[in-house]
Structure formats: C-alpha cells, structure tokens
C-alpha cells in the first residue's frame, strides 16, 4: 500500500490529515471491536484531535466520529493518503473521504439523482 517509511500508528498520525489504515495489530476482542466499528484495513481515517488531557483521541472514519484511546489507536498502523500540501485541507477531505477511496464506486449519476430529488422532496 505504501512505503514502509511512511507508516505510523494512528495515535502518532498528524492531526487533521487523511490516512489509510494499513493493519490492525492486536488480536481478540479489541480487534473485533475496532473492526466492527468500521476501522478495517483500507479505511480512511483522520485524526481530529486529542481530548484535553491528550487521551483519548477523536477520529473520523466512515462518516462517524469516534473517540478511542491512544493505547488502542497505537495498534492501528496507517499510511498518509494524500500529499502533505493537500493535507491541510483536511476538513474537505474528511467530509468527502469516499472520493479518496481506492476502490472507485458508482459515483456517476449523482447529478441525475439530485435532479430527481426535487419531486420526491420531503416525505
């Protein structure tokens, strides 16, 4: 996925940059919980920041805002997704995380749907 030099653990990832999860390095229930909450390899995560005492940290992943402890974040290896220059625009990127995903889905037709929206309106 990425050059080994650019790998770091999620708790040390610079805040407000977009990263891709490379691996989860723990086993058992903790691993299950992390993966069930959507932190699977390949997922885009952005660290929003740390809680006032430095721990836990708050991350964005799959459109959700999760708090997790540094100890657990340390088990998650990530690689930066974007250029450093781009990364300052993290706000944009974390909202449109889907666009940066490697597997490109069926994004076409978005405009068409938006037009349809009009007559469906509210419920």
């Amino acid at each position, binding site marked *: 996925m990425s050059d080994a030099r650019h790998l770091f653990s999620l708790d040390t990832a610079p805040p407000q940059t977009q990263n891709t999860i490379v691996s989860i390095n723990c086993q058992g229930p903790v691993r299950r919980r992390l993966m069930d909450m959507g932190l699977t390899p390949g997922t885009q995560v952005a660290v929003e920041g740390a809680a006032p005492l430095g721990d836990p940290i708050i991350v964005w992943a799959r459109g*959700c805002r999760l708090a997790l402890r540094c100890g657990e974040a340390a088990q998650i290896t990530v690689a930066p997704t974007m250029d450093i220059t781009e990364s300052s625009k993290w706000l944009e990127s974390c909202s449109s995380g889907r666009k940066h995903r490697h597997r490109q889905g069926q994004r076409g037709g978005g405009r068409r749907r938006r037009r349809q929206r009009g007559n469906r309106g509210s419920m």
Partner: protein
Amino acid sequence: MPNAAANTTADTTPVVATLPVIAIAGNPNSGKTALFNAITGARQHVGNWPGVTVERKEGLIKRDGNEALLVDLPGTYAFGSRALDETIARDFIVNENPDVVINVVDSTHLERNLYLTLQLLEMDVPVIIALNMYDEANSLNLQIDVEKLSELLEVEVIPTVAVDGKGVDKLVCSAMRIAHANQGRKEQLKTRIAKRTPIIDYGKTIEAEIALLGKHLVDAYESNQGLYWRWQAIKLLEADIAIPKKFESVIDISAARGKTAHDLKAEVAEARARIRQVSGAEAIDLITEARYSHAARIAEAVIGQDSDPAKSSSYAIDRIVLNPWLAYPIFFGVIWVMFKITFTLSEPIAEWFVTLFDMFGSIVRGILMGIGVPLLLVDFLVDGIISGVGAVLEFAPPIFLLFLVISILEDIGYMARAALLSDRLMRAVGLHGKAFIPMILGFGCNVTGILATRSLDSPRDRLISILINPLISCAGRLPVYVLFATAFFKEKRSLVVFSLYAMGVLLAALAAKILSLFIEPDASSTFVLELPPYRMPRISAVLTHTWERGKEFLHKAGTVILLAVAIVWILANMPPGTGPGSPESFIGRIGTAIAPVFKPAGFGTWEAAVALMFGVVAKELIIGTLGVLYSASDASLTLAIQGAWTPLSAYAFMMMVLVYVPCVATIASIRRETGSWQWTTLAVAYTLVLGWILAVLVYQIGMLIGLG
C-alpha cells in the same frame, strides 16, 4: 426506582404468545426507542447517547383490527459484539425468530449502519428498513436515493423521522403486512419468504469454503434451506462467539446422521486454515472487510452529495466543549450547575410544599375530629400517614429537578462527552470513561445506573461499576441531606450537600481502585465511543422523561413508603398504653437495642437507629420514619431534629446515609446483574462497614478538633 428495573415490558397489555412479533433492531442511538414510542405510544427512555436501552421492551401495536407484538431492543454495532446489551439484541433476533425485523438505520451514518443491515439480511430474516433521522440527513444536505437503496438491498426502505412520527404509519403498515404473512409459518419457511440472491460476494476463496460447509449443513438438515445454510456457514467461518442455539441443533443433527459434531468442527477449522493459507488473513477479518466495503459501495451509490461533517454545528460546539482549557471547567461547571439548580431553584417550591402539608394535616385533623372519628385513628392518619408520607413528598421538587437536569444532559448529547473527558480520570482507578455514564445516572437512581453498566464491553469493568454504583448518591438520599443541611448549616447548606455528593464520587473511585487490584484484568476492555451529534433537547421529551422517573418516586411514596410508615406508626404505638413514639414502644425497644452501635458516631438515639433500619427498604423512608417518630412532639420535624442532633453528629449521620447499605431495589439489581450472592453480600457488607467507619471518623475527629 425499583419499577424501572423490574418492568421489562412496556405498560400496555399482557403479552400474547400467538401474536406476530416485530423486532426493532439497529445501531445504538439510531432512534429505535423513539420509533418504538411513536408506534406504541409508550414512553420508554430515549436519550442522545449510545447505550440508552439495555433490555428488551415490549409493546402492542393495533392497526386496523390487527395486532402485533413490538419489541424494542438495545442497540448493537455488530452481531459479534460482547457487551451484554448488544448480546441481548443479537440473541433475540437469532433465537426468538421475530416475524419481521424493523432495522432502524441512521441515515446520517449510513455506511456504518449498513454494516449491521447487511448482517441482518444475510441472516435472511424478513427485514424492513426505517431510514431514520431523515430530517437530519436533509438538513445536512445528504441526498439519499431511497429507491436505489431499496433496490440494492432488495428490501423495503421507508424514510422516517421517529421523533415527529413522520413515515411511521407507512412503516407500521408494511411491517404488519409482512409480519402477518409470516406469522404461524414454520421457522424454516419463515426465513424463506424474503429471498433472492446472496447479498454479499465474499470472493473466490471464501465463497468456496462457504459452499463446502453449506453443503454439509444442507446434508445435515435434510431440507433445502436456501440461503439459510449460507448464513450458518459464514457464521461458522467467522468463529462468531454468537453461536446461536439453532447451530447447536445443527451440530446435533449432523451427529445423529452419522457425522459427528467433531467432524463438522474439524471441517470448519480446516476451512479456516485453508483461507489463512491462501489469503494470509483470518476468515473473520476478510468477512468483516468485505461487509464494510459492500456497505461503503452501497452508501456511495445512494448518497448523491456528501455532507461536510466539519461544518456541522456539533463540531463547532465541540471546539469549545472539548477545548483543552475550557473542557474541564465546563465539565465541573455542568456538575455544579446540576446541583445548584436542584437545590436553589427548588427551595421556594419546597418551602411552599412544607406549609402545604402542615396545613393539610391540621385541616384533616380538624375535619376528622369534627365528624367524631376515634382519636387513635385520627392520630394514625395524621401523625402517622400524613406526617410520614408528607415528610417524603415535601422533597418532590428537588428530586424532580434533579431528574430534569439529568434528562437534559442526556438529550443534549453531553453524556458521551462526559465519558470522553472522564476517561483519563477513570483510568486512574482502573475503569474507562464509558463507566462514567452509569455513575451520572446513579445520581438519579442506582438501579438505573447499575442497569446502564450493561453497555460496558468487559465483564470486569462491569462488575466493578456495579459494585461501586451504590456509593453514588441517588435522589432517594437527597431529602436527608436537604433536611439536615437546612436544619444545621443554614448558609453553607449547598456546600455541605455538595461535599457529600463529592464524597460519594471519591469513595466510588477509591472502591473501584481497590476492587481493580483484586479482580483480574481482562483483555476485552475497549474504549471506542461514538460521539453523537448535539441535539436541541425537545421540551416534550425532557418533560416526559422527567415525569416518568418522578412518577416512580410518587408511586413509591404512595405504596412502599405509605405501607412502611403505617407499620412504623403502629409499632411506635404498641403495646397499647405506651406513649406514642416512646422508647417503651416495640419500635423504641428495637431502636434502643441498636442505638449503642451509633453512639461513637454521635447519633446514638433510638429514632436514628430505627430510621436507618427502615432506610434500607427505601432511602426516602429515613425521613418518613423520622417524620412519624417525631410527629408526636408537636414541633416541626426540623425543630425536633435540631434537638436530637448537633451539627457535627448531623454531618456524621449524613455520611452514614450516603454510604451505608444500598436500598432493597438496588440490592436486588446488584444480585440480578452480577448473578452472584457473593458479590451482592460484598456490596452490602462493605458499604455498611465503610459507612459506619466514616460516620465514626467524622464525629470523633470533629470532636477532637473541637467542632462538637
């Protein structure tokens, strides 16, 4: 409040076994209970944090002459989760065969919610999707293509706004239709109704193993189970801890048909080993990833325009609430305001209540005497019942206000932030931030707090949280503090009461620390907490919730407290001939026997001993009992107390009340939630001993430094 725990069904109609069953399932905080309430008209607890509902609740739906049983379940992120509340939800769906599952999906977190949806669809139970929080999705400008979503998932999708009831009628109609179509069918047939093709393609390697295992299962079942075997095969590959009861029977059947259970288990192990060999990863990881990618693809396909979470107001609010400099001042400020409101605001109303009850007592006495009711009966009614119950009811205002503040905190979304902020502090005592939520709820009622521990992942954290919860001062103890603090510490009364609450929290922390040294740590303790958006508290919801909990207090006053107070009065006036409330009465003799124990704590009166004794039934009874015992001496309760206690012994007494023995309802819930008499005994014993020691320490040290 005991009823909150004992009553697991909504207060509607008795459960009829033959009704079709509709289950509500979905991620935590997706609006399941709000939907349940909208459908049944019930008033179950709704709150803006994950983990509000921790047990199943049932209610009846009646539509067009049809009836069905609606079951609200705790939220769950995934079927393999270990927290007890999530397990309850999963077990219900897997083992109880609901006729249809309403999957409540939070449309603002579509991708994550679909992960559970896919697991439900895979199970092949009939599913209908409530695309909830549709109003929020609209205001976030998320444009969800509902038809396309329905097409991709091959199930009906109905947008809803549970809190406004929008879309709910349509949802109920569809659910009822499916439920009735399914009802009465044999389990095997029931699952067949929905299907269609496999929802997820797991890729060649895994699909091959699924097919192989599935074939064994089909053989074992002897009947064509369509996609049902596929689900079982996937579950076996996942090594899901959730081996449903049904599987065990499969394994039994395979044993009966010449294939031993061991064979099947060995085959599963081999299949997993082959997958590991080919793809270098565990089957369960691959399956999880495949589900999430599928969920992501669907979300991507149906969401026309992404929202920008960073622009949401919640994010902006959190910049302040979680700001390094402001977070803790706000955190402690919130707690301070909570108590300030409870006392200061309630004071004028409370005083008014006191006058009201006094007047009521004298009016009733006047009337009864006037119409010639025997004196003894008048005394019983006025000095016994009205004084006793009245002494408790006078404290309705602060108690209702306390519930109001807790409801607002729950509704706004601050609970999850409090959990986040307290994590570091909680870690110092061997727990994590999520364990803080049961503590806050414990301020309202320990039974509620103890129930809320079900959402903790680790059994150890849960056990510790249960055992320390009684130290958190509940609303039932509030009347004692208010009465005594007002009687003895006029100016400083809020500070005195606050010190007791703080003491309770500190003792809980200390107890947690000590317990955590003795109870083996386990690996499953994780702190992964979803931060819900801030929501404007809806006045109607907050008031309803406050009322529902306050009602239990009133109910208690009209039942348990009434009864106990009557008993106290009778015992205090027996044997006939003894002066009412004299030490020679039955209750006086009991009290006199216990009283010496409390002598070193400064409140060695028999009245105090009796009050503490009845306080075990319900903490409110401490005041109720004192009300009866001192009512004979015409002066007001406050005056009587001022005569029997000194400020120092009053503080020691409040300390005792704070710590000693949880009330009966709490003891029962400790027993139920720990499932062990040993732990229950420990909880009772350590609080009793600790309470006594602290009360004695307060008094003796106070005497030493000349406060007495």
